[in-house]
């Protein structure tokens, strides 16, 4: 098991490297000039050149890449062009909101979606099944920013229950923390909920038709027992898989949600950085995202052994 983990982590190195090189060359080829943004509207072209030079943006591609790369190996993600702050510091500042948003989204959507999927599978073919699945498809088919605006309008402006925007650290208190996050997590979670509910229903249907479930039923195990103990446990593997894959979707959705609800998270940091061509920040964030993604999927693989003892590493 330990050897497996080590092997998996080592296997991520080429992936992360590939991502790094890919993103770096992508940005290198992209037009857009941070120096022009910094210099402002009134600057002369000569001034812009001077700034570009002082930022080291006039050096050739490979020099820049390896310079950055060796620093990263040494644990240094570089310094933002615009803020002059270390990229690692900027990322650290923004991890809490994004991670909180994602965890809450996951919790919310899993705790709604799995019962929905189970019920739909249990009542397969009935009106309940149809209704649940239609709700799920609706969640799928509306852009999350539209949902976000609707939620904010309803619960913040009309009912005045929750704040419209912002983020409160959990260190301030659980209640203010949740009050700020509940709307964005719902807006973001609807898509995810739809996805998981569908997968749950599908796998449950599959599992319910298996022999051992029929045996369990025949043995007189109660309905709830069959559903939640026997069937769900076996359906867990694909559900966990989809959570792992869906993680990337979640990050994408977080970008929009963070903009709508003014949450100071990583998604907004990245979009701002891309629009301004703040190269070191983009590099650092993408590197970190791909690393997290790989880790999450490693975690998913390890969870398999919990749900399905037949799987061993």
């Amino acid at each position: 098991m330990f050897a497996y983990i080590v092997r998996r982590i080592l296997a991520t190195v080429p992936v992360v490297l590939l991502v790094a090189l890919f993103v770096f060359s992508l940005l290198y080829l992209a037009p857009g000039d941070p120096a022009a943004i910094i210099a402002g509207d009134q600057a002369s072209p000569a001034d812009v050149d001077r700034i570009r030079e002082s930022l080291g943006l006039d050096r050739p591609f490979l020099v820049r890449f390896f310079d950055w790369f060796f620093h990263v190996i040494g644990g240094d993600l570089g310094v933002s062009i615009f803020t002059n702050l270390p990229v690692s510091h900027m990322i650290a500042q923004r991890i809490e909101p994004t991670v909180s948003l994602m965890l809450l989204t996951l919790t919310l959507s899993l705790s709604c979606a799995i019962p929905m999927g189970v019920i739909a599978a249990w009542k397969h073919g009935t009106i309940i099944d149809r209704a649940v699945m239609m709700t799920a498809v609706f969640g799928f088919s509306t852009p999350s920013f539209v949902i976000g605006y609707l939620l904010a309008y309803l619960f913040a402006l009309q009912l005045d229950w929750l704040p419209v925007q912002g983020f409160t650290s959990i260190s301030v208190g659980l209640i203010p923390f949740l009050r700020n996050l509940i709307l964005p997590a719902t807006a973001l979670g609807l898509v995810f909920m739809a996805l998981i509910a569908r997968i749950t229903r599908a796998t449950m249907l599959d599992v319910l038709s298996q022999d051992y479930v029929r045996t369990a039923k025949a043995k007189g195990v109660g309905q709830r027992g069959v559903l939640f103990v026997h069937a769900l446990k076996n359906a867990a593997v694909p559900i966990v898989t989809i959570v792992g894959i869906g993680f990337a979707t979640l990050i994408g959705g977080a970008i929009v949600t963070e903009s709508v609800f003014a949450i100071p998270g990583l998604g907004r940091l990245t979009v701002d950085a891309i629009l301004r061509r703040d190269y070191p920040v983009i590099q650092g964030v993408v590197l970190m995202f791909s690393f997290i993604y790989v880790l999450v999927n490693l975690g998913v693989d390890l969870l398999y052994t919990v749900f399905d003892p037949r799987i061993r590493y």
Partner: protein
Amino acid sequence: MDRRDFLKTAAAGAVSALAAPNLARAAGSSVLRFIPQANLANLDPIWTTQYVVRNGALLIWDMLYGVNEKLEPQPQMVESHDVSADFKTWTFKLRPGLKFHDGEPVRSKDVVASIARWMVRDATMGQVIKKRLDALEAVDDRVFRFRLNAPYSKMLFALGKSSTPCLFIMPERIAATDPFKQISEYVGSGPMRFMKDQWVPGAKAIFERFADYAPRAEKANWLSGGKRVNFDRIEWNIVPDGATAAAALENGEVDWWETPLPDLVPLLKKHANVAVDIADPLGNIGSFRINHLHPPFNDVRARQAIQIALSQEDYMGAVVGSDETLWKTIPGYFTPDTPLYSEVGGERLKGKRDYELAKKLLAEAGYKGEPIVLLVATDVSITKAQGDVTADLLKRIGMNVEYTALDWGTVGQRRAKKEPPAQGGWNIFHTWHAGADCVNPAPYIALNAGGDTAWFGWPKSDLVQEKIDAWYAASDLAGEKKAIDELNKAAMDHVVYVPTGFFKGYQAWRTNVSGIVKAPFPVFWDVTKT
């Protein structure tokens, strides 16, 4: 710990926990929560010329002179000055008791170093002074002197200018930074200290009161007079989504929003606890910027065709919206309602729009349907709205538009290219100029028509340059006005650029906040909150 002690502690804990919200509320009245116009991504007001950086810097750093609402420079850090009759020797004395946030006094050598860094980066006035400079010296700790080799009468305007980059006074060790590199320490002598460790670029910036700040005795007026801040803490919350910012203000989560969307203003006005007013009386002038180097717009007839067809009403409707009190058409280049405003030569921008005549002029200029490269920064709403109107306009006068959607950073890069449009250059882009920078030709870099030395688009007209010099030479207001009338006509005839109208913006705040004034920048002093 026995059980009784434990209970006592627990009770005390519960009480303090219950009391906590009240404490928080009490502190709340001393905090001002502000949504700035844009993200505060860095804080070097010399290195970058973004207005939002200047606005933050105004809290941290003090200036030698500050303008009042008539844009007249008034002494701020300076106690007195002395100028020789030939306007070549300028001597200044700092007022006593000025201190930086690190406790060090402000000395002449700090001022000299700050001026040296600023001069390199200020194209409109700093570089003019630098060219004439024989020596800039610290006479003693409170006195410094300029010795020039040519007269310069606008020295006080230069030291107190509010257009970017402003002359902020920094400690010598910070001001010694290469002007093209960013400073990393934000220590000033202004009324507020910047809390760098609490700064989350793109989300939040915190300023706290500087206890040792010694405001001037006079009443504050824009950047002049005593800068008395009534808050222990000013929080800048960056809210990227306009709709969300409006909702936050309605919900009382922020106190003051610098730039509400005009379309949302009717909604905010209906709200009992929100007040709305014009933000900046000097407003902005929209710009249709033409590249003079390439056909068809290297022919003046093609440029005039744009003037004849362009409807400022359309642009202003798209940029600001239906609220007609916010904008006006201007057949001129200078800020309306300021002394030098002129409409001479602006006839082509008035009256009914004539697409047929425009088409005819374009044909005369030799236009045969070549693609016109229009750069549009779609992430900035003012430029995007103008770009959309222009695309429609060009189509109406039979031009073949290549609408190039970019972000502002890329427009900034692309517009510097002089190559033909087909080879990565451009024909048209849009921007806007702050009205405060368009009151006279000195800070008005966009009106310069010096060819290679002109701003992007590189218009070249000796007549325009001659008239600008005539304004500098004018000795009284009448003379200045005459020069400006002729300049306006020359620039209109040559079509240096096409103004798309004059527009103002709103600002909005909670009604429990008072003392917010109209200015081209947010003025935090004398604002109170109950």
